[in-house]
């Protein structure tokens, strides 16, 4: 009898939290009003690359005369709007152009395996492929390389300054205006957007940069993100950018990537090479 009583007591304890996790009608009502962003998405550049559109656009140009492909890579990066020159103030315009001159001609080697925010919005490759999970409390943007954006929509504010430090993705909160997600992001790590070994450094941002986005679907297969970056330390005025994402139609699920599973591309004497295969595990 005592054992039966204990079992009932344990069941009641377990049932409480389970009941609390069930969605209330009010929550379901909110959820039903939110947009359905399920599916796989990628940047327009990535879609052009995957479909061969980028390759076709270069047909007839022929390989570079010296066999170097760096010029093709630079042509590709040039299509990234986020690598354009932001509205720097005079000091940062001078410093940025000096950095660019210094970087020019630098051999391109290994890229970073994760891009961070906001570069991931303009990824030239499928590394920026993502899924968006919309809930009343939070929108999660899950990227192929494992990066995640947590955009809290439960009414919270950013953490107070003592509880906040700069990260690659920054800290994001948001709210809905009809079916548009308005995102406010701060505390993004200071520095250039691209890895330091790149000949195209990209915009240099301070840790005080403030990002505002308006993310929405503009048709069944296209999302648009209008981004404004305000950086009073480095910009003369806010920088306005716009990105589009296309629905991925030739993949049935997200397949993750990483750079450590079988990295066979070491840099030797400043150049990337192919290392022999590791011995297979028994």
């Amino acid at each position: 009898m005592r054992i039966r009583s204990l079992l009932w007591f344990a069941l009641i304890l377990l049932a409480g939290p389970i009941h609390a996790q069930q969605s209330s009608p009010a929550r379901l009502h909110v959820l039903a009003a939110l947009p359905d962003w399920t599916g796989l998405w990628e940047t327009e550049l990535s879609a052009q690359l995957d479909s061969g559109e980028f390759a076709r656009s270069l047909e007839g140009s022929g390989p570079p005369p010296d066999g170097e492909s760096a010029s093709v890579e630079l042509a590709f990066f040039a299509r990234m709007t986020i690598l354009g020159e932001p509205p720097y103030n005079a000091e940062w315009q001078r410093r940025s152009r000096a950095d660019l001159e210094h970087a020019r001609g630098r051999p391109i080697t290994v890229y970073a395996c994760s891009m961070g925010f906001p570069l991931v919005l303009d990824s030239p490759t499928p590394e920026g492929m993502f899924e968006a999970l919309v809930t009343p409390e939070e929108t999660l943007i899950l990227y192929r390389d494992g990066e995640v954006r947590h955009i809290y929509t439960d009414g919270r504010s950013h953490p107070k300054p003592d509880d906040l430090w700069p990260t690659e993705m920054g800290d994001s909160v948001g709210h809905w205006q009809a079916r548009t997600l308005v995102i406010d992001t701060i505390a993004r790590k200071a520095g250039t957007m691209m890895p330091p070994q790149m000949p195209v450094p990209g915009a240099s941002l301070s840790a005080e940069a403030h990002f505002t986005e308006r993310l929405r679907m503009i048709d069944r297969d296209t999302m648009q993100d209008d981004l404004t970056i305000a950086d009073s330390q480095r910009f003369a005025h806010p920088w306005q950018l716009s990105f589009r994402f296309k629905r991925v139609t030739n993949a049935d699920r997200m397949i993750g990537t990483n750079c450590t599973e079988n990295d066979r591309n070491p840099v030797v004497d400043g150049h990337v090479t192919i290392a022999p295969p590791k011995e297979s595990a028994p």
Partner: protein
Amino acid sequence: MSRHFKWMPAAAASLVAAVPALAHHSFAMFDMRQTLTLQGTVKEFQWTNPHCFVQLLVPTPDSMQEWSVELHSPGDMYRHGWRPGTFKPGDKVTLMVHPDRDGTKGGLFVSAIAANGQLMQMPGGAGGPKP
């Protein structure tokens, strides 16, 4: 030159087909002016991140050479019909590659003629991304 190694002028299509490789690293390491044809036997198909590799055994008159041929990531290849079993050990294949500039026995995959005669291309190429 051995019949196993054939050098051909590279087409622009194959040059730009390589662009997705830059997700992990630059492809300036490959000589895009040259396309080398390798006839051999698959030793191993590594379906791994950040890049897939074909280990190809290529017979020469006096030795057997092992080549490492680099492709895109599994996620990119999967989108275009490639699977872990697309190449199997023992398959007799012909691979077209842009060779490494540093002389190592390696290169960037351009296309292949599989054991069953099927033409297979790198995703993103101008010629149509179908294996």
